[in-house]
């Protein structure tokens, strides 16, 4: 896992595959306190399970091959009272108390100043709304979440269609996104990096290709990143290009929004900052000119069933103009 480059417009040098959750998901490699406590508890439960299995196997061995005296004792009432009732009650109660104590950071209410983001599950991508300290929408993005290192970030989880599940294995556990309901989880990264996420609740069609990217910056760099986006002005250079015209005339703008332009569609991912994102297609492909062209021209071949139709009527020049326009959206 390589840290993000200081200028995020630079290509993702760390290798794209590394930024995704990958397989198997890195559940034993926590990068923050909320994933860490879950991992610790998992190991403790695993080793307790191994210990109990060992005791049971030993009893089984005695029952089958042990000396007569031991077998008689194993069948006595005392063993049932101790091994069958007292031992589980004591051990399971202790584990429950310990587990709840260990993971209390997951449910403790966040501080009032914690940064808050609303992530809404969509078939098959993620709407990302950064909320200001007043709780109002401060900045829209999609499929990628930027956070400061070492700070707890509150993520409000919602869904607009079916049940999804938000899961960034190295930063926290899974939590469902349920239509009509708001679930809240906390994430935190303790070092800069790019962390892959994945929808963890089958949501139809290309569910397996519903990925997510979390980028953690040092706090000062995060402030710069956020400030750059909030003061964004529509690039005059890109505004009157062929790509900008095509974006309107071919219908892209019906589903996609680009702040400061007439493109106001909300059905698909917001493209205001697409030029700086690490990935396209919801965390599944690296973001470069080639993948942009491939996606715009025939997204169905890449992510079958997703709601973006293939644009096979566009010429190569059209596709390049649109890719130029996408790369200019910073």
């Amino acid at each position: 896992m390589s840290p993000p480059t200081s200028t995020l417009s630079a290509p993702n040098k760390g290798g794209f595959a590394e930024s995704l959750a990958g397989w198997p998901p890195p559940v034993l490699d926590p990068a923050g306190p909320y994933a860490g406590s879950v991992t610790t508890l998992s190991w403790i439960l695993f080793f307790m399970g191994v210990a109990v299995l060992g005791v049971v196997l030993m009893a089984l061995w005695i029952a089958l091959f042990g000396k007569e005296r031991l077998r008689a004792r194993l069948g006595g009432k005392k063993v049932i009272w101790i091994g069958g009732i007292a031992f589980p009650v004591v051990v399971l109660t202790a584990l429950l108390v310990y587990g709840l104590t260990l993971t209390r950071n997951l449910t403790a209410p966040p501080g009032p100043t914690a940064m808050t983001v609303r992530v809404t599950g969509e078939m098959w991508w993620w709407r990302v709304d950064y909320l200001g300290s007043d709780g109002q929408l401060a900045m829209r993005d999609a499929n990628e979440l930027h956070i400061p290192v070492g700070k707890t970030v509150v993520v409000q989880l919602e869904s607009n269609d079916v049940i999804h599940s938000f899961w960034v294995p190295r930063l926290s556990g899974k939590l469902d996104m349920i239509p009509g309901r708001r679930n809240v989880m906390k994430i935190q990264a303790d070092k800069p990096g790019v962390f892959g996420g994945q929808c963890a609740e089958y949501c139809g069609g290309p569910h397996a290709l519903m990925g997510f990217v979390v980028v953690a910056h040092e706090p000062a760099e995060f402030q710069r990143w956020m400030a750059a986006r909030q003061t964004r002005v529509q690039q005059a250079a890109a505004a009157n290009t062929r790509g900008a015209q095509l974006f309107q005339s071919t219908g892209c703008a019906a589903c996609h929004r680009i702040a400061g332009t007439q493109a106001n569609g909300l059905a698909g991912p917001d493209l205001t900052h697409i030029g700086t994102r690490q990935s396209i297609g919801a965390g599944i492909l690296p973001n470069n000119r080639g993948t942009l062209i491939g996606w715009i021209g025939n997204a169905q071949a890449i992510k079958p069933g997703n709601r973006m139709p293939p644009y096979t009527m566009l010429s190569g020049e059209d596709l390049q103009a649109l890719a130029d326009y996408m790369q200019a959206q910073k």
Partner: protein
Amino acid sequence: MRHDGGFLFALRALLPLVTLVAACKPPPDERQHMPQADPAAGLAAIERVGCAACHAIPGLNWPKGALGPSLEKFGDQGMIAGRLPNRPDVLAHFVRAAPELVPGTTMPAMPLNEKEARDVAAYLYTLRAK
């Protein structure tokens, strides 16, 4: 390739012809020799930059992009983009800077360095009918 009786028979029948034709051109290994290039590293680079967003590429299960041509059996292919001879130096240049060689092509320059481009070419030359 399934080896059944019919196939072997056909092979035996065609063998003299095949040797005759093969004698007319340099052997493929020499024609597409890519010194100091690593096909495995090439496949990793292909995955990293996402070539498969447009091309179906054997060795990658996903994606199977369909905007550009499938690269299955690319090593047997005579031309690149229908314009250029399919030779190592040309291919290594084309995969990283296609518009320089074929102006107007939809395939853009890709974020590969020269070493990676040679590795990618080396991998593409492993894609053969056998």
